[in-house]
């Protein structure tokens, strides 16, 4: 296949193109919506040819490194760069004074300096930059920068931070409202409160026959994507810059970079380099502005690649949460009320904290119908590492609490935990705690019933236990005397796409021309492919809508309108919807051209297998003949239906465009003497509305399930006095193939009439329900309350 006419000039063409800049993706796979064709980047990824952001290269490039604060809270008295700058091989050393534009950035609130000016608010905050001709020289030079700190005692407890007597030392000035800010986010003008969300529904004094109370906490999880933060900034010689970077949302990066550099969007062009996983951790800026600053200052391309330790400081994490819940029910198990207080520790800067509070609050009691609800959810500034987006943001934390409460209530009532959940399950037409009527299928009860009907894995044979199958494997410390098996269930839900009145949209440009007698399509969006398979989905939609086989995926860059964020399970819905709209516009143009060539009525004609066909299937002409020499190109935005800001006092409103429901059953063997665990099986049932690519859907469910399980039993960034204690893969554990059990999965397809093809966002839901199911199984096996995750061996053994 040869390259067709280019729709636009790629950003890379304007300057020298780095080795490893993305090319067009094309393959011989076939298959439209509802099939599972091979991904266009698949062969490149298995041969090692696919270049990631850390693989970019230019022969004359410099290497940039970042000097970070060792203190979680300190005033910077002075910075002395002389010794660093004098190091042979060093080309530039930059500090806050060198930020060309405004020294501020932020995803939802502009509250974080590009380089710390007078105060550092977390350990790892960027203070200075070095560019040198070798990465080791740059690192050694950075160590020679002398920063004189006046060290302050950090504020590290979210609840203490609210009302702390020194609160206004954290943020001297009120954070600014920017485009992304939900005005529903009540930003405290001076304090540590980022957002307080209140939900008040029904009667706060309603009495119940049975009341259960619990306090729960969730540790700080890391996205731990394997491809570290990295990119290459290339100056264009005219004051502008091209940035090749791994990210989740090119256009929101571009907006923040322009502000910090004092440049216009046409001067700051971004191209998505290969992304080695994201999971929310690339939604905020990392090296973006720093690399551009060094490139513009030196006039040379600058590459920056974080190492693993720096990566733990280089991106936001999942908010730790402290939660207090009170559930009241009648004797027959009907929920009467739920009250809860939820504290999210946002760390030093806001990042996505307002949205995390929004999700954690509005969906904070789970997919259940409850007439009387009081929820207070807080997002708080502290001197801990900044927290923001991670898969299932806001909902993962609360799910551990509300599902533990449901089990506690079931035990108190003497009910089966599934029966209790089914009795109170949301369904289509139910009203959420924030007063939104669910207006598409909500098969909560069916998810649970299907899970219950799935066969359980075989019980271990008590007489002849294979030591190798025990928790801890062949460590062989016991002979299984203390091993008990538990089974736990959880059902959860989460919003898809952006909420609370935000005008969420994606853009797609679709071009078609006849090439060697065959129609050839190029699809161009700025929506980030981070591994989930969006590039495959874009091809599939074009094939279905335009009746063609050959679809090329254009590199993702800012030469086309925003694709929105690859987050909130939104890209297939939003960018998939945009591609569909652009295809429909292209189809109309093709039919218009065809009318010049035939008198046959075309109003009901369709594009199938390269031809224009009548409703009865008769071929009128080929698409290539209709197009002739023309190059048809259409660009469309896809906005989802409007949502509303919620009422600041009652929390009521049409806040979310769509919900995604999933349920898990976990089977866990627990060595109660050693505190060791083995997850034996993790079964999942999820409603996806319509599976555009069934294999990719299952892959998302497997991956999300593994990450949720990881938070339940092993993953935590341990922070003490504001400092990270375990910034490595030796001490921050993520599941291996040995930890990951078989995962029986059932995918339901109940179409959402409001969504393209009826689909539901898939990626986050399984991350939310898997962890609570694992925790429930461990509780069942041990009889312990286990109110904190990750559950560690000492929590089980009590030692």
């Amino acid at each position, binding site marked *: 296949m040869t390259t067709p006419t280019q729709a636009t000039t790629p950003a890379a063409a304007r300057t020298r193109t780095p080795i490893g800049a993305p090319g067009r993706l094309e393959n011989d796979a076939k298959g439209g919506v509802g099939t599972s064709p091979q991904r266009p980047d698949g062969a490149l990824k*298995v041969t090692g040819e696919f270049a990631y952001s850390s693989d970019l290269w230019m022969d004359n490039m410099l290497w940039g490194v970042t000097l970070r604060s060792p203190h979680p809270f300190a005033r910077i008295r002075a910075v002395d760069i002389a010794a660093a700058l004098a190091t042979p091989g060093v080309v530039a050393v930059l500090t806050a004074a060198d930020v060309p534009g405004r020294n501020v950035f932020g995803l939802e609130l502009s509250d974080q300096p590009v380089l710390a000016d007078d105060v550092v608010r977390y350990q790892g905050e960027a203070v200075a930059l070095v560019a040198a001709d070798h990465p080791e020289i740059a690192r050694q030079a950075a160590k020679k920068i002398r920063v004189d700190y006046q060290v302050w005692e950090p504020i590290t407890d979210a609840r203490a931070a609210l009302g702390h007597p020194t609160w206004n030392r954290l943020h001297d000035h009120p954070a600014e409202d920017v485009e992304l800010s939900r005005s529903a986010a009540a930003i405290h003008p001076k304090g540590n409160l980022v957002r307080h969300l209140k939900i008040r529904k029904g009667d706060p004094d309603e009495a119940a026959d049975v009341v259960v109370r619990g306090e729960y906490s969730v540790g700080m999880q890391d996205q731990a994507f394997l491809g570290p933060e990295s990119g290459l900034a290339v100056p264009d010689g005219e004051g502008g810059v091209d940035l090749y970077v791994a990210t989740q949302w090119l256009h929101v990066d571009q907006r923040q970079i322009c502000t910090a550099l004092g440049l216009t969007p046409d001067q700051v062009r971004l191209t998505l380099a290969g992304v080695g996983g994201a999971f929310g951790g690339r939604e905020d800026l990392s090296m973006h502005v720093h690399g551009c600053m060094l490139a513009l200052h030196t006039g040379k391309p600058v590459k920056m690649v974080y190492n693993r330790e720096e990566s733990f400081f280089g991106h936001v994490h999942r908010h730790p949460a402290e939660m207090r819940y009170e559930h009241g029910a009648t004797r027959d198990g009907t929920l009467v009320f739920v009250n809860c207080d939820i504290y999210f520790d946002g760390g030093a800067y806001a990042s996505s904290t307002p949205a995390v509070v929004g999700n954690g609050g509005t969906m904070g009691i789970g997919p259940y119908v409850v007439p009387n609800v009081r929820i207070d959810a807080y997002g708080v500034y502290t001197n801990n590492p900044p927290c923001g987006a991670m898969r299932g943001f806001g909902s993962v934390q609360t799910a551990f609490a509300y599902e533990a409460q449901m089990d506690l209530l079931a035990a108190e009532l003497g009910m089966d935990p599934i029966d209790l959940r089914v009795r109170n399950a949301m369904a289509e037409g139910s009203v959420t705690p924030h007063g939104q009527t669910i207006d598409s299928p909500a098969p909560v009860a069916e998810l649970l019933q299907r899970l219950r009907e799935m066969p359980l894995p075989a019980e271990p044979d008590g007489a002849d236990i294979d030591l*190798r199958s025990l928790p801890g494997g062949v460590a062989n410390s016991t002979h299984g005397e203390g091993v008990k098996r538990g089974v736990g269930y959880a059902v959860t839900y989460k919003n898809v796409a952006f909420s609370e009145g935000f005008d969420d949209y994606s853009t797609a440009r679709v071009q078609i021309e006849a090439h060697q007698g065959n129609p050839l399509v190029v699809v161009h969006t700025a929506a980030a492919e981070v591994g989930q398979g969006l590039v495959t989905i874009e091809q599939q939609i074009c094939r279905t809508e335009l009746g063609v086989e050959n679809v090329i995926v254009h590199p993702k860059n800012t030469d086309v309108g925003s694709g929105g964020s690859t987050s909130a399970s939104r890209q297939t819905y939003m960018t998939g919807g945009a591609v569909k709209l652009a295809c429909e516009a292209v189809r109309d143009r093709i039919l218009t051209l065809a009318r010049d060539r035939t008198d046959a009525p075309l109003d009901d004609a369709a594009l199938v297998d390269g031809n224009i066909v009548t409703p009865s299937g008769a071929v009128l002409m080929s698409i290539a003949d209709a197009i002739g020499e023309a190059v048809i190109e259409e660009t469309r935005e896809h906005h989802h239906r409007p949502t509303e800001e919620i009422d600041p006092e009652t929390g009521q409103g049409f806040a979310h465009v769509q919900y995604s429901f999933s349920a898990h059953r976990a089977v866990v063997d627990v060595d109660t003497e050693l505190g060791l665990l083995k997850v034996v099986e993790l079964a999942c049932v999820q409603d996806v509305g319509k599976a555009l690519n069934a294999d990719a859907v299952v892959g998302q469910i497997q991956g999300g399930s593994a990450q949720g399980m990881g938070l339940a039993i092993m993953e935590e960034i341990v922070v003490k006095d504001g400092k990270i204690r375990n910034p490595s893969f030796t001490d921050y554990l993520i599941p291996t193939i040995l930890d990951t059990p078989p995962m029986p999965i059932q995918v339901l397809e109940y179409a959402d009439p409001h969504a393209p093809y009826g689909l539901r966002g898939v990626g986050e839901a399984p991350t939310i329900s898997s962890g609570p199911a694992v925790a429930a199984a461990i509780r069942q096996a041990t009889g312990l309350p286990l109110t904190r995750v990750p559950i560690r061996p000492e929590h089980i053994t009590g030692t």
Partner: protein
Amino acid sequence: MQLSVNGQSRDLELDNRTTLLDALREHLGLIGSKKGCDHGQCGACTVLLDGRRTNACLVLAVTCAGREVATIEGLAGPDGLHPVQQAFVEHDGFQCGYCTPGQIMSAVGMLEEFERGWPSAVTGEVQPAGLTAPEIRERMSGNLCRCGAYVGILAALTDVASRS
């Protein structure tokens, strides 16, 4: 020094502190092997050194003189993808793909180890009876995949093992 990579002898002038991984990536332009942690914790840099699985980030390049280094770039033949590569594509053994070169090289080495009759920690008898799921899990546990494509990786390797 001379380094033999994928059957080709390459002349290199290196600082003697250079790791094999940096020699491959930054001096030979072979970017397929990935630097996920640089501490031997993630397995993304796995190559075969004289046929054995090795974390290239933990080996100094100067120690590799006279030895044969096999990387992901040399795996596919003139007839197309190696069976392990093909199985990873067919069974969705990856998403972002960053760990994939290391997973595949590790799998190729693992299959060879199994062929030679090497037992693993879960092998009941000294001579493993077959490449069962527990055997594959144990033998592949040094390669992290954050996308959680382990079910696909297991399926891919089960498929390859059943065909060989």
